[in-house]
Every structure is written in C-alpha cells, then in structure tokens.
C-alpha cells in the first residue's frame, strides 16, 4: 500500500453517522454542555433555593422571560474572586506549588526514565509497566499512604529520631512540602511515560556516532540524548503541571489549613459554602489559568499525531 495522500475534510456517510452518533451525543451532553453550564452558573448569583443559584432558565417562560433572565446575569461571582485576597493567594499558591512539584518530578523522573530506557531490551516493557502501574491504583490511597510516613509521629520522623539524627520531629505533615511530595509521587507516571518514550525511541547509533566523533559520555548526553528528548520533556511537564494546578485531594490530605490551592477553594465553595456561582467562577478561572498549557499540550499532541 502506498501511503494515502492528504485529503480535504469530507462529509460523513450515513453508515459512518450511525457509528459516530452515540459517542458524539455523549460528548455533547457530558463534555460540551458542562462547559456552557459552568460559564452560565458563574454569571449567576447564589440563592437559598434548589438549585442554589438564580436566575434559573426555564423554557416555559418564553422568549421574553428568557431575555429578562439573561439580563439578570452578572459578574458578581468574578468580582468576589478578584476582591477576595484568599482567592488570589490560592491562584498564586496553586501555580507555584504545581510549578515546583513539576520541576521536582522532572528532575526525579529523568534519570529514572533514562535508566529504564538503557536497560536490556527485554526488560524495558516490564520495567516501564511497573513504573506506570501505580497510576491505575487509587489516587486517594496513594496519597493516604504518605500520611503515615510524614506525620510527626510517623515512620520517617520515628526512624530519624531513633537513629539520633534529630531530637524533635521534623514538621513535614500539613506543609506545602508535603503537598509537593504528594504531587510528585502521584503524578510521576505522567512524567515518566513521555520521557521514556522520547528516550527509548532514539536510534542508539546516534549516540555511537557522537561517541565515534569524539564526544565524551557527558557530551553525548548533553548534545544528543537530552535535546532529542525535548518533546518528551514538554509533554511530561504539561501532563504533570495541568492536573496539579487543579488538585484537590493532595492539598486537602497532606497540606495544612494554610496550604491554599484553587481546587480546594472550589471544593469548599461548593460543598461547604454551597456557593455554586463562586465555585463555577473558580472553575472558569482555573481553566483560564490552564488554557495556555492545555492548548500547548493539544498542539503538541496533534503534531505528534500527524507525524
């Protein structure tokens, strides 16, 4: 088969519509409608009602009623976000915490991915499989496992104290450091997989050629391996950073009451304060924060897909 030349977008045939109808309707209902609703609710006001916001659009009220209700929409919730220093702090804190955690994850994952990619060929799939497997196990449980390690009376402090390294327990639990460790631990597979793919996919003769041309092992790594894995680094960084910014479970379980993150604020607004417009506005703000990285990621993916 010769490869098929590029084609212009075409209409779907009737048979193809039969295939695509169910997933397309599904996507419209559960992926696209939520976005529209989040935006709409974020422009509403909280109310003591079911649902706890107003206006509530009602098709029965006719066009005039609908228009009137649209005029009731406003930016109150966003004003609330912008004026509340707690919210602003949580944005900033989300970005820095996620940023630091992403860097740590990159630095930790690179040698690990390199070691797996350089292992004997028959071991590689098994090693990467085991490295990624924790991703499929419960996130909650994996974060929970760190509580026992990090607490004042936890395993690490206990071990250090009985070895005589420290006299009083190190305050690790309920700190930003604990949140960072939790993020690195939970999202390491996301960093590892693209890095491994980028390193393992390199033609080994490139390194041999560089060495043959007089490059030391260090130079081979810096001039050949590292630049060629750029794609994997970008994908890994985005795959860790994006979900980390919106993380709720990790700051809630490992962070202190002062470890603010936007996902946690959203959660509290929704569950504790029952302020749905504020939670929706936080969601919109979160998406706005992530828009650039998400678009970068999508672009990298489509480029990858075209290759």
């Amino acid at each position, binding site marked *: *088969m*010769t490869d*098929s*030349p*590029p*084609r*212009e977008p075409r209409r779907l045939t009737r048979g193809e519509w039969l295939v695509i109808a169910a997933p397309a309707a599904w996507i419209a209902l559960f992926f696209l409608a939520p976005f529209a609703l989040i935006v709409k609710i974020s422009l509403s006001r909280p109310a003591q009602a079911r649902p706890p916001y107003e206006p509530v659009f009602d098709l029965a009220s006719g066009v005039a009623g609908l228009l009137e209700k649209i005029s009731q929409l406003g930016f109150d919730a966003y004003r609330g976000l912008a004026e509340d220093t707690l919210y602003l702090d949580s944005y900033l804190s989300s970005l820095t915490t996620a940023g630091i955690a992403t860097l740590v994850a990159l630095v930790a994952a690179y040698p690990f991915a390199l070691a797996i990619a350089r292992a004997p060929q028959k071991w590689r799939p098994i090693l990467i499989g085991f490295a990624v497997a924790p991703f499929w196990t419960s996130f909650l449980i994996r974060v929970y496992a760190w509580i026992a390690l990090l607490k004042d009376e936890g395993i690490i402090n206990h071990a250090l104290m009985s070895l005589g390294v420290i006299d009083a327990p190190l305050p690790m639990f309920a700190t930003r450091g604990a949140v960072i460790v939790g993020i690195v631990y939970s999202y390491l597979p996301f960093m590892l997989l693209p890095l491994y793919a980028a390193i393992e996919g390199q033609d080994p003769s490139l390194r041999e050629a560089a060495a043959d041309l007089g490059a030391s092992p260090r130079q081979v790594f810096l001039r050949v391996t590292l630049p060629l894995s750029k794609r994997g680094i970008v994908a890994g960084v985005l795959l860790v950073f994006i979900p980390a910014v919106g993380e709720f479970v990790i700051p809630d379980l490992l962070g202190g009451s002062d470890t603010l993150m936007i996902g946690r604020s959203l959660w509290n607004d929704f569950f504790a304060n029952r302020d749905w417009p504020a939670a929706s506005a936080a969601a919109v703000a979160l998406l706005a924060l992530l828009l650039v990285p998400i678009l970068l990621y999508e672009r990298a993916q489509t480029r990858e897909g075209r290759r």
Partner: protein
Amino acid sequence: MTDAPLLSIKGVSKRFGAVTALDDVSLEVARGEFFALLGPSGCGKTTLMRLVAGFEAPDAGRIEIAGEDMSGAPPHRRPVNLMFQSYALFPHLSVFENIAFGLRRQGKDKPAILARVAELLEIVKLTGVEKRRPDQLSGGQKQRVALARALAPGPRLLLLDEPLGALDRQLREETQFQLKEIQRKLQTSFVVVTHDQDEALAMADRIAVMRAGRIEQIGAPAEIYERPATRFVASFIGQMNFLPGRIEDGLFVGAFGRLPAPPTNLPDGAKAALAVRPERVAPTTDDGLDGIVEDVAFRGEIIHIRVRLASGEILRVSRGADQGARASIGDRMRLAIAADAAQLFTDER
C-alpha cells in the same frame, strides 16, 4: 454481448487534495486476458486498481465490469477480487478459513466450501497446511494462500497488486510461470499492477504503461518494447541509448557526427533524440561512430559494453557472449546504427 470487454474504464480521473492521481484514464481488458498496469511508484496504477475494486470512487468517468456500471457499488458487491500486496491474510483465521472467507459470504454450504477450498489448494499447489495460521507460513506459502483466497469466490476479474513484490528473486521467476499457468487454466481475466518491467513483459498479454496519472501506451509486450510510443516508455522499458541532435537532409546530425535518420515526419531542422537499444548497436568496420571501450560487464549469456564516443557521449552496447572477439577496456571500437534500428523522439513525448 460476448464481444463487450470484461473491464472497461472510460475517462476516469481521481484527485487526492491537490494531487492528481489519475487524469482521464481509459482502457479495456478483454475476457480471459492477462493485463498489466506498469509504471514507476506514484504513477497512479495502485489508485486505478483500488477504483476498480471499489475502495475509492472516481471523481470523473465510469468503470464498467461486464457491461455493468460499477459507480456506487461497494467493494463487497463487485464481481472482482483483489490479491493484496501485503497479502492481508487474516491473522486470526486458519489457512482454510482464510480461503473459505469469500465462499461463506456467498452462503455456500459446507460440502461445497470443503470441495472448493481443496480444489484451490490443489491449483496453487499447497496442500496439507489448511489448519495453519498465516504466521506459520513462509513468504511463498502466504502468497499462494492469498492467491487462492482471492480466486475462491470465482471472480470474473482478479486484481493482483504487486503479486511477486514480497518474494525473493528465485521464487519470483518460478511464481511468474505458475501465475500464468493458473490464469490460462482458469480463463479468468487477470490485471496485475507492477513496477517491474520484466514481470510485466514476461507475464502479460497486454501492458498499459502509466506515468503521472496518465496512460502512455497500451500494447503487447513486443510492441511496447520495439515501438515505444513516447520517450518515457522507451526509457522505462528495457535499456535505451539516447543521442541528442537534429534532422538535416534525411540525416540525423549531432556532436557525435552524422547517422542515417530513421523514418520520421519531423520537419527538417527539428531537434530530437535518437533512441536505440544496446543490442541494435553493432560493431562495424565500415562507416560508423568511433569510440573507446570504457567498461565491459560480463552477464553470462550477454556482455554489456560502455563505449565513449569521440564527442564524449556514452553508448551502451550489448552483444551475445558468443559473438566474435571479446572487447577489453581501452580498445577502440567503431559502431554502426542502422536507420531501421533506431527511433526519433522530440524532447518531450
């Protein structure tokens, strides 16, 4: 009705985006004919075959099989079967089930299927492997299973996409003869797509030479070899020398000197290239072009000689190994090109 061609392609064009794959192609294949579509990769021969099989729809023109218009007919309703270049054997099915696949779609009953599969395995000389999976077969065996599978439903027309492409050299030659024999026995029309001119010349009753989405020439192998219609066909089929020059008073004049001009309707003074096959260039002691032997290659029954003319041009000459004295590098050689041995082409077409 019996005189209607089995396959008739009329003015078919096909574009993929900005690329024109086929441009106004017309041809006919008769019942029981062994036909070859020959051309370099990207010439559109595979696209043409996929149009006939029904995997693509033409943008313009029509395709008729046994007088019936095929437009809009999906692949599974066409009386045509295709032997894929990759063989496309179903990896999860046994050899038997692969061959029976088309028969089951026709709703044949069990004894009929058993008999037909056995018959086909006999035809392709491959028995005793019915229970094997495709990945347990050798390349040559896979090729035969693919052939048997495509023949099983009894198509009126069998399309073969580079049928010998995946075989090694020795097996290829042997299989050429077998394919031809099977085709003769079954009297099914075969259309072979190939880029290999030797294959096309050896097997086909007629050949269509394609280039850049167009048909350059359709004819019997000898006709195409001896009277190429275009310069492209002349250079694509077999070895050919081209000497640039122009026509002057019935002579062909160039840097090399002057030669008797082949019959032509080109006007006096017209620029052209003189095309001559290496085996039609003859050493002579009379009038001719002088040159020096630059290289001699021994190829068993034939010797290939490269001669550099005094004007700098290279002429390839081939001679039977038993014809006269051996030439060696550095020898002087005088060559004659008879008017009826050569053909003239203007630079394009």
